[in-house]
């Protein structure tokens, strides 16, 4: 049976997340998942109807058959109430995973996330752990070759900066099926609140080899996913793939770009980013969020503060504009950062 420990196969990011939850629920009976239609058809088992939905990105499909409705809990539409319930459950012996369908909905449960979950451990003087995972989908597509995400201003946002801003919350943004599974398992085992941000258009699109066995991926570590010497491109979530696409284009012009996948926004792995910048002497941060008070500008400020002497050019940011997310595909494509914009930013640095 030892051979299974190294066995891997191709999964989508959503399948990898499903496997992470399943394996942790098998391992630890205190792990539960709750949210809107995490199963679907709640209470209709007597009609043979179960598991009608499986969560916003179908990442929880099939779990109710294995773990039952006591641990895979469909909630009413009540984010403030069920995120609060998850906080209370985390204080009293459970390890809840709560799905907030889209990050746009944090407006209705922001108190529970920033005032309750984030601060409990601190304001109670360390007396309570809070093993809570908040999973939420975010992002736009902005791909004019096919079609846009089409979900517009209230169902397409990124918004992780308003979570990373708050002390006490860990915020991770996986970019591949592999790191999604490992980061989620780390988040479930963490004794504090962790927000796991899953990009809508990586859920089915990001396919990759995923080991069958359980494994963790460290929270708080960025990863250099492509080595280069002329510029560091720093990406978050789907933007890491945009950075890799830009690096390919730059390579055709003999510009060697290094790509850092930030992966954890809080606590930020400053050292991996700064170490890269000190070698390449240039930094472009690519962020799908709005520019004002953003991760992009925060990372740029850190580089300016701590790596100024190594920089050969001003740090550039490539972000969404300071507008809501538009509906029309052509506008959405203009909204979301793409490889051309990243390449253009690098060219300004190289003069």
């Amino acid at each position, binding site marked *: 049976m030892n051979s299974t420990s190294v066995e891997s196969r191709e999964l989508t990011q959503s399948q990898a997340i499903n496997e992470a939850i399943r394996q942790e629920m098998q391992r630890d009976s*205190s792990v*539960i998942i709750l949210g809107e239609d995490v199963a679907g058809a709640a209470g209709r088992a007597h009609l043979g109807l179960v598991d009608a939905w499986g969560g916003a990105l179908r990442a929880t499909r099939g779990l109710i058959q294995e773990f039952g409705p*006591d*641990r895979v*809990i469909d*909630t*009413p539409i*009540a984010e*403030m*109430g*069920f*995120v*609060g*319930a*998850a*906080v*209370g*459950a*985390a*204080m*009293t*012996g*459970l390890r*809840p995973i709560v799905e907030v369908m889209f990050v746009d909905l944090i407006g209705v449960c922001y*108190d*529970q996330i920033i*005032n*309750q979950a984030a601060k*409990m*451990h*601190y*304001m*109670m*003087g*360390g*007396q*309570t*752990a*809070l*093993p809570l995972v908040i999973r939420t989908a975010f992002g736009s597509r902005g791909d004019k070759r096919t079609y846009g995400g089409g979900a517009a201003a209230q169902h397409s946002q990124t918004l992780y900066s308003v979570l990373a801003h708050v*002390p*006490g919350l*860990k915020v991770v943004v996986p970019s591949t099926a592999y790191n999604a599974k490992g980061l989620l398992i780390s988040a479930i085992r*963490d*004794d*504090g609140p962790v927000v796991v941000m899953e990009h809508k258009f990586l859920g089915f699109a990001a396919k990759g080899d995923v080991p069958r066995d359980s494994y963790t991926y460290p929270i708080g570590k960025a990863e250099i996913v492509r080595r280069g010497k002329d510029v560091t491109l720093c990406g978050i979530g789907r933007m890491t793939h945009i950075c890799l696409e830009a690096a390919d284009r730059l390579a055709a012009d003999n510009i060697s770009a290094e790509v850092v996948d930030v992966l954890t926004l809080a*606590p930020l792995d400053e050292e991996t980013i700064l170490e890269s910048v000190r070698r390449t002497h240039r930094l472009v941060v690519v962020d799908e969020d709005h520019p004002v008070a953003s991760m992009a500008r925060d990372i740029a400020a850190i580089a300016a503060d701590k790596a100024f002497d190594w920089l050969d050019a001003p740090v550039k940011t490539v972000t969404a504009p300071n507008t809501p997310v538009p509906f029309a595909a052509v506008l959405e494509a203009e909204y979301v950062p793409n490889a051309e914009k990243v390449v253009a930013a690098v060219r300004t640095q190289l003069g």
Partner: protein
Amino acid sequence: MTQDLARWMLERMMLIREFEERLKRLVDAGVPVGAVHLYVGQEAVAVGICAALRKDDWIASTHRGHGHCIAKGVDVRGMMAELYGKATGTNRGKGGSMHITDVTKGMLGVNPIVGAGATHAIGAGLSAKVRKTDQVCAAFFGEGAAGIGSLHEAMNMAAIWDLPVLFVCENNGYAQATPVEYAIAVKNIADRAPAYGMPGEVVDGQDAMAVFDAAQRAVHRARLGQGPTLIECKTYRYYGHHQGDNPLRYRTAEEEQSARDRDCIKRLRKDLLSRALVTDEEIVQIEARVKASIDEAVQFAETSPLPEPDELYRHVYVG
């Protein structure tokens, strides 16, 4: 009602009263204990409910939470030290009045975000249900919380999942300076219970025994898996919203006096004396013990060390 429980209730109510009256004097004398919302007048509610709970049950509290803490058994020395911002406080000096917590006593936190505690209470109830224990959780909230969405969401989910939760509305008549009859269209908040599919009852919140009886019925149902109950306790806070607020800007002296005439501690004392559950001599002894406890708490708080500066940076993340 056993004699031990009756005496415990009287002593706890007197301890809350003494804690709060001492705190009022400290505030008035300029001791920097932060913003405090005094519980004086409402003691029968916290004690009547907690008398029906076990040590391993939980409560979730409000900004006016000192009484709930004491009723659930939190040490008054740690509480007073917390108010003084000392390292020996329940929360190591990082919470203050509005965050006093002792999870070892099942006290899940004073919480100044109105309505938030009720959602945590249903989470505790969910935890008991999933872990198949028979623990229950009481969520205290004021009538001011009856207008906020989190309470509605919590009550609905508690009802659909049959969670072991007591929703305890302490209707003291005022949300800051807003009278209840302005903010709530129904006569009684408990009248809403049937709309959530749970039993509800209105209780005289100045009658500790009536509160206890209602709590016992609700706890019994909860432990049997029969779901939540809404108990509305009509009560009154003797002082302002926070210490320093002059309540005569929004209510009359006559109204205040009429509430004080129905004082919950005097009432319980008279009741227990008449039923020979306590004697006058024992009451004198209780008074002495209560005063000594609070003297000791203040002494403990005054002589405790301040937090070290690096305490600021501890406990941001768990671990």
